[in-house]
């Protein structure tokens, strides 16, 4: 049973009908192919219409869709010989961030990112993708390792934010994130980041200060969650929809603001409707980004990465 979002109700109804018809067809032997075909065309049209002009708040829902592919799915399909690496060598192993070495379309890379989990067990194991300082210190360790061996870094971002807890604060969440950003801006290897679901605030930028930042078509990237923003500025979380509009958190807005470098298209109806297709297109986009950097020397890569962020937001906004 697929999971439907609120705004997908008309689509859900149509697809329910199609299912029903197929069932009936099987029993009675009546030719219903025409009717099914007609309904399918209608459903597709509806999908095209609603996904063609998703509001920012609808995109928030799609980005958090429970069936949306996560880091583990991308690693499984895109990375051969994946060898996960664990631990921050200081306190613990944070499973909210997964990372390791592997082969991406033939070349060895370091791949890392947040994993939200796909069922109750795995969600708890990965802390819903919200990392503690150990997670960021592990990410930093992996970046330094990649730097040492000349491995390009692929970072897939999908988090509601860094974990807000007593233990996380006690062990220096702020410092861990700051250090991670600092290392991101120091390494001399190609660094590509992709926002694949939610890019939640400091917890996201910690591993996204990259040479190229890609974003899936319906992903979001924001300084604060719309709910958090609404409860502060509107004094009520019920205004989350208004906050989502105001924050300009969609890939389309962020490309205009030059915060991201390109948008990776999603299959019709969102990444969750055709997981192999979205994995393929992200893989292609990552490969293109890496190829663009393959001839550039490390020091230049680092300088360009820094220049990009220094220049960001300076031009063409007024």
């Amino acid at each position, binding site marked *: 049973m697929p999971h439907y979002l609120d705004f997908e109700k008309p689509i859900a109804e149509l697809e329910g009908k199609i299912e029903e018809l197929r069932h009936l067809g099987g029993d009675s032997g009546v030719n219903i192919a025409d009717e099914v075909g007609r309904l399918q065309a209608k459903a597709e049209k509806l999908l095209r219409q609603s996904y063609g002009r998703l509001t920012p708040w609808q995109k928030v829902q799609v980005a958090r869709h429970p069936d949306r592919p996560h880091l583990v799915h991308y690693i499984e399909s895109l990375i051969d010989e994946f060898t996960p690496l664990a631990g921050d060598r200081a306190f613990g192993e944070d499973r909210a961030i997964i990372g390791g070495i592997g082969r991406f379309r033939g070349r060895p890379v370091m791949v890392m990112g947040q994993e939200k989990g796909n069922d109750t067990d795995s969600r708890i194991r990965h802390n819903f993708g919200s990392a503690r300082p150990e997670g960021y210190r592990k990410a930093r360790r992996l970046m330094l390792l990649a730097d040492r061996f000349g491995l390009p870094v692929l970072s897939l971002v999908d988090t509601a934010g*860094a*974990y*807000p*807890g*007593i233990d*996380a*604060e*006690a*062990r*220096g*969440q*702020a*410092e861990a*994130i*700051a*250090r991670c*950003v*600092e290392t*991101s*801006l*120091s390494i001399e290897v190609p660094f590509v980041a992709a926002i694949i679901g939610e890019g939640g*605030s*400091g917890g*996201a*930028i*910690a591993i996204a*200060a990259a040479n190229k930042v890609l974003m899936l078509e319906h992903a979001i*990237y*924001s*300084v*604060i969650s719309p709910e*958090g*923003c609404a409860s*502060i*500025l*509107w004094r009520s979380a019920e*205004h989350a929809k*208004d*906050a989502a509009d*105001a*924050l*300009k*958190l969609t890939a389309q807005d*962020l490309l205009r*603001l030059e*915060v991201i470098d390109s948008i990776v298209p999603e299959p019709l109806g969102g990444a969750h409707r055709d997981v192999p297709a979205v994995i393929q297109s992200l893989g292609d986009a990552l490969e293109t980004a890496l190829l663009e950097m393959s001839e550039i020397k490390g020091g230049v890569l680092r300088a360009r990465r*820094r220049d990009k*962020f*220094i220049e*960001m*937001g*300076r031009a063409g*906004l*007024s």
Partner: protein
Amino acid sequence: MNWLTNFVRPKIRALVRKADVPDNLWDKCPSCGKMIFHRDLEANLRVCQHCGHHLRLDAKRRLSMLFDDGEYQRIELPKVTLDPLRFRDRKRYADRLKEAQARTEEPDATLVAHGLIGGRPAVVAVFDFAFLGGSMGMAVGEALIAASRLAVLQQAPLIVVPASGGARMQEGTLSLMQMPRTVIAAQEVKEAGLPYIVLLTDPTTGGVSASFAMLGDIAIAEPGSIIGFAGARVIEETIREKLPEGFQRAEYLLDHGMIDMVVPRHQLRETLIRILGLLRNPRPSAEVVALPQAGIEIPADAAAAAAGEGAQGDR
């Protein structure tokens, strides 16, 4: 120009302008609740004389407190696009900005100045919490980049004094991008071999703490300052339990190894002068000690120790 700008605006300005504070006011300490004579409080650098609580200090007071004889030169900061997202909540961000500018008579939340500290040149960037909670948007990012580049140009240390709730939501993801931008500012100073010192004041949280503020070569905090990543309310709502006493205070960070020292406001200047002197002067400031003359007998173990040091020095 019309009658509106000519006549009405100055009057509105006059209404919102800060009234001169008469000297006979009393303040109430937010910590112990005791009354403090306004002039005493100012004379005491806004530290409560009863309980030692450090009240917030405005940016200009902070600058004059840190520099020799309270003298410094401010630098003009780059202009940025105001309100890049045309953000509007219950109020327009453009209006919030104008109000904050009128109230503080500053363009944004960070001031950058240079001058002498202990007779040596230094660049200081201070946050003004009164300007939209010291929040960090494009203008603050530009200020820190300008401060960093000035420090490198002058071959002077950079001292940053954050007082900020974090990123400025009204600039959306662009405000988040000030995290990498300010980290680069800190890196440029460090890579030029110059000291980068952060003086954490109340409050230093969110995206500010998770970027340049936690990267100081040396981290000093004022007593009682709230320093942390997540806000206390968010943490309470997430974990559904009460936070421990003193959580996220400067002293808590010191106990958890996150900062080097907690220094009362009155000792900040001398502490900074001492640290900068030590970092910037490899040789002792005391008079030169004469070398032992030939023929003087050196004890065997001292000679061996000296040889050992020499060997280490060859690394």
